[in-house]
């Protein structure tokens, strides 16, 4: 496992907010030369700490007014293959996140839709028809914030 110093943590915090900042700009902010900054970023990427870059878009402006989290319980455990369910659910474009979880539900899904009636369409035509899908619980997202976590 990789050891981080305060400068690495500051770099990760900055890139977690804005990954378009150049190594030169970040370096000036942290008191590092551009090559030193670049080497640190490369090390964090190679260690897998920075897993990739995400484009951040305004969902509402693109017409996706609703985000719903769905807890899904599989109906017939044992008889249905998890792989079949996972393959089918992953292929649905409106499903952004699929997590296999332990607890009240078997899977946790994040779904985007244009509005509630569009969500209902996705739920009825695509989710409820998945192999093995049983009970579902829907919670509509009102607000969301990401925190820097233990990097503080």
């Amino acid at each position, binding site marked *: *496992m*990789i050891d981080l110093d305060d400068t690495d943590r500051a770099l*990760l915090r900055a*890139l*977690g*907010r*804005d*990954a*378009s900042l150049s190594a030169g700009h970040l370096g000036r902010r942290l008191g590092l030369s551009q090559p030193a900054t670049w080497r640190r970023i490369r090390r964090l990427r190679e*260690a*897998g*700490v*920075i*897993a*990739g*870059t*995400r*484009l*951040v*878009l*305004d969902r509402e*402006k*693109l017409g*996706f007014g609703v985000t719903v*989290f769905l*807890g899904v319980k599989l109906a017939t455990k044992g008889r249905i293959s998890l792989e079949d369910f*996972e393959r089918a*659910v*992953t292929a649905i*474009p*409106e*499903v*952004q*996140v*699929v*997590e*296999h*979880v*332990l*607890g*009240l*539900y078997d899977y*946790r899904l*994040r779904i*985007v839709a244009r509005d509630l009636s569009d969500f209902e369409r996705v739920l009825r035509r695509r989710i409820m028809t998945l192999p093995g899908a049983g009970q579902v*619980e*829907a*919670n*509509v*997202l*009102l*607000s*969301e*914030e*990401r*925190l820097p*976590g*233990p*990097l*503080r």
Partner: protein
Amino acid sequence: MLDDTDRRILRQMQADPDLALSDLAARANVTPATLSRRLERMRETGVILGKRAEIHWPALGYAVEVNLRITLDKTQSRAFDDFLAAAREVPEVIEIQTFLGQVDVRLAVIARDIAHYQQIYRERLLTLPHIADVEALMQVSRIKNDESLPV
């Protein structure tokens, strides 16, 4: 507001946000000049908000991730504000979401291992104000995680 060309650009950008502009132009089948004009407009109108680096917590030794689903005591008028302010102070909380539904708030919590999680849960999470009910979903695996929009 957006046409098919914009959508094509956004699809390619979502698929690979680190792509160089010249490669992006080729993949979206537009000239570099068109690409920069379109990108500039989508940034100005706030469609494109930016880019952020995705941190992979297990690589930093945080092997456990738990979704804590919380119902608040809504007879307390400040339940949401008090709870959210206190939850933001817990370093292991990496995401806070509020909902309309059975669950009021979800916290994504990371920990080094189960023992560490138990410690955070008892000392920092159960002590958060105005909790009526808590339920935990422990993450086994993340099968899909791309917040791409089907534009």
